[in-house]
């Protein structure tokens, strides 16, 4: 059965397939980063939107994913820092798993204590990760970073060209969305949702909120690792500065702007952060100022983000009609 929601999803997918056609490399490149950051932000959304905890470590998890993938896929070097020359298909799962495990290790103790201590621990973790990447140059190339990660070649489909890399990224994105969808609809996912709606009630219903929050955090971290694993072949250059604290902040704001707790909220948020400089070119240096101010205004007047704003506007337009229940649900899954 083709519900209205599925039609929208299909239309979105078709739009994503058509989007890069006839565009220059820059636009295609930007679309790639949008999809990649969307995945990282969707992972973060599990922690922020569903479990209500602030994490400032998403860029560190991206770093873990990116450096792991880079070191595994780079060809061995005669001198200096080299890799193992493995295929991306091998490197990616290892990267994701590494991010997941580190997520568990960081999250477990941090979530033992009440309050927003996860925010502090993850903040410290991100800066520590930066320092290690910068200082341990025998492994990470230090401040010069790592250059020249190969783009994956699937025999019949080499992703070296920008457009092909985009479709590769899109395929990963679609699989990722299906996986997330599955997670959210699983018993765990229902626990996430219960947590979001009312953590006290969830607890009284026998949900172990601490364990579920930890799981949400670790899965979110794995998503960050996946995003990192794609950044390495996209940019073909990584250095510690690209994963500094400010990027974690940026991703956090993506989730908030899009609409924390909405499945596709982060996609919209990432779109705003990555594509907005395009539309606000005339603002030059004022871009970040406008962005920050927008975030504040949005938080004050529409805490549900742009998706929530869309809902408010739609409800106003159709005041006479009853808003369809399934649409509400469709947006907030």
């Amino acid at each position, binding site marked *: 059965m083709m519900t209205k929601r599925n039609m929208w999803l299909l239309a979105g997918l078709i739009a994503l397939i058509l989007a890069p056609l006839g565009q220059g490399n820059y636009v295609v490149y930007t679309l790639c980063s949008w999809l990649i950051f969307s995945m990282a932000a969707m992972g973060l959304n599990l922690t922020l939107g569903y479990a209500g905890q602030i994490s400032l470590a998403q860029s560190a998890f991206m770093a873990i994913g990116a450096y792991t993938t880079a070191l595994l896929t780079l060809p061995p070097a005669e001198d200096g820092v080299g890799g193992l020359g493995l295929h991306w298909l091998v490197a990616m799962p290892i990267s994701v798993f590494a991010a997941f495990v580190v997520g568990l290790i960081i999250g477990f103790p*941090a979530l*033992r204590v009440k309050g927003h201590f996860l925010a502090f621990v993850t903040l410290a973790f991100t800066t520590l990760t930066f320092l290690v990447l910068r200082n341990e140059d025998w492994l990470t190339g230090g401040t010069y970073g790592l250059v020249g990660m190969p783009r994956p070649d699937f025999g019949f489909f080499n992703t070296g060209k920008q457009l092909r890399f985009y479709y590769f990224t899109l395929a990963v994105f679609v699989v990722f969305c299906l996986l997330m969808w599955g997670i959210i609809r699983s018993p765990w996912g229902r626990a996430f949702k219960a947590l979001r709606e009312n953590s006290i009630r969830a607890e009284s219903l026998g949900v172990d909120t601490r364990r579920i929050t930890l799981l949400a955090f670790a899965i979110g971290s794995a998503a960050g690792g996946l995003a990192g694993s794609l950044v390495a072949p996209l940019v073909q250059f990584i250095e510690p500065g690209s994963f500094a604290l400010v990027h974690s902040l940026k991703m956090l704001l993506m989730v908030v702007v899009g609409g924390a707790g909405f499945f596709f909220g982060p996609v919209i948020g990432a779109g705003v952060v990555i594509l907005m400089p395009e539309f606000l070119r005339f603002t030059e240096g004022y871009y970040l100022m406008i962005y920050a101010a927008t975030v*504040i205004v949005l938080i004050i007047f529409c805490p549900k983000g742009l998706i929530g704003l869309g809902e408010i506007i739609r409800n106003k337009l159709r005041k006479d009609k009853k808003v369809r229940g399934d649409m509400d649900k469709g947006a907030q899954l």
Partner: protein
Amino acid sequence: MEQFFQVLLSGLATGSIYALAAIGFTLIWQAAQTVNFAQGEFVMLPAFFLLAGMHFLGMPFWMALIFGLLLAVFVLGFLFKRVLVDPLLKHGGLSLIIATMALAILMKESVKEFYSAEAQPFPEIVPNGSWDISGVIVSLTDISHLFISAVIVIGLQLFLNRTRTGRCMQATAQNPGVAEILGVNVKRMVLYTFLINGVLAALASFLITPVYLAKFSNGEYLGLIAFIAAIVGGFNQIRGALAGGLLIGVLDNMTATYITAEYRQAVPLLLLIAVILFRPQGLLGTSEGREA
């Protein structure tokens, strides 16, 4: 040995300024149960108010100083509370914390665009001068930083403990529900807290900027350090924030001198993690101090 005392003194002097920022942090935490991620920028901004007073409005230094202080109290105390904190508090702490992160970006970018992206020299509040005490250079700046911070902290403690208004503020911070049923004007007390944070931020700003130079990005590291100092010392205690600030100041300098310069920044962060894991109420904090 001279080196040890030299570094100790420098660490204490810098740490005393961290402490001022950390105390503001603590006050805001108590009054609004929120973490102000823009605290570093709160310390960065007043210096620019002062500079603007001198260079755009042509004020003499002392007048610009008062102007900067008042403007800081108004903007960072009053406006911050009215425009950001009041409407957001009802959405819960999470929204407010994220809003302060956005505010930090907004403040930094505004200063950069409207004042300057480059560092600016800043007038010395304290005259230059130093004594050489058997190899240890004791500068007037270091001594006065320590002294002024101590005076501010003692003054604040006296105000909070010895005046009725101060005790009402403590009641509001420690148990807002009770303060309300006793007829304390809770809203006003919370406002006072924000105003005091404005004063502390401005004073920290005027003391540290001659050393750091006025730059839009000054708040990034300062905010982080104040934050760590407050948590390490204990979030519900002024003396905790004071001790945390001094400790971090000394530790930072000692690490850089004796252990590692590359991982200098890591030491406070590791301390932060250790404290959160093993003593979340902070080194001097009391865990049962407030009803969560």
